[in-house]
């Protein structure tokens, strides 16, 4: 079976792909996608550590509980982010991050 370190390496790679995405992409949707990838990388980390680590029974599954919270909050964040994007598109007819400079609507 794969040990813990391979899981951690994988989540590190995914996380860095997310970072690359945020820095290099112009379209807001691509940025949101890269944020989602980073969140999932963290998710993987949580679950991997919690199932390999051994804690005392009352706090045995903290990692997995946190993973559940992360998933739900990520979904809520994605929903609000996309709603924002829709309103921005309706105002500016484009969601290129580079030309969303003016403060007024």
């Amino acid at each position: 079976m794969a040990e813990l370190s391979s899981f951690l390496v994988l989540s590190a790679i995914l996380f860095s792909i997310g970072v690359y995405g945020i820095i290099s992409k112009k379209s807001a949707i691509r940025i949101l996608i890269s944020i989602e990838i980073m969140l999932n990388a963290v998710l993987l980390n949580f679950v991997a550590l919690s199932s390999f680590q051994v804690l005392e029974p009352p706090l045995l599954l903290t990692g997995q509980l946190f993973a559940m919270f992360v998933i739900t909050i990520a979904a809520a964040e994605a929903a609000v982010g996309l709603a924002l994007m829709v309103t921005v598109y309706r105002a500016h007819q484009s969601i290129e991050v580079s030309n969303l400079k003016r403060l007024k609507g």
Partner: protein
Amino acid sequence: MIDIPFLILSVLAIVTAIMALESKEIIYGAVSLAITFLMIAGFFIILQVPFLAMFQIIINVGAVAVIILFTVMLVGTGTVVATARDRKNSIFAITVGIVFAAGLIIILSQWPGAIRAVPISLSIKEWVGGIASMLIGPFTPVFLTAALLLTAALIGALTLAKSEGTPEEVKDG
């Protein structure tokens, strides 16, 4: 030996993640993102946590990917033209990514602490029992704030995206 399922899943996860960012049309990006979420759920099954795998599929693949696809259809279909500045920018981004990955890998690969050889595998009853006892025990405030936050996000998203009104408003508007 490195087992085959883990290898396949990790390669697929990384490739679909890159596809999600690099693909020409954003539609392919959104679809590849959904596949990445699926691969992550596969990892959870390898880690003997089927409940969480299904949880991840329901929420991330079922809802988040669908919303992103929906928004891409509604909004983001303009093709992005890569200017010179973008190319310079992406080279910089790749270097930052690689440096970041290298740092993380070095730190994470020698992880101290008591490491089990095989992930714990609990029966569904013990697992749900453990989660439930923690939720009721030390984590109740976190649980409540999460619930409040979700409703706030729901209301926020609705008011943001609400544009034209009901037929009556449209008719005289």
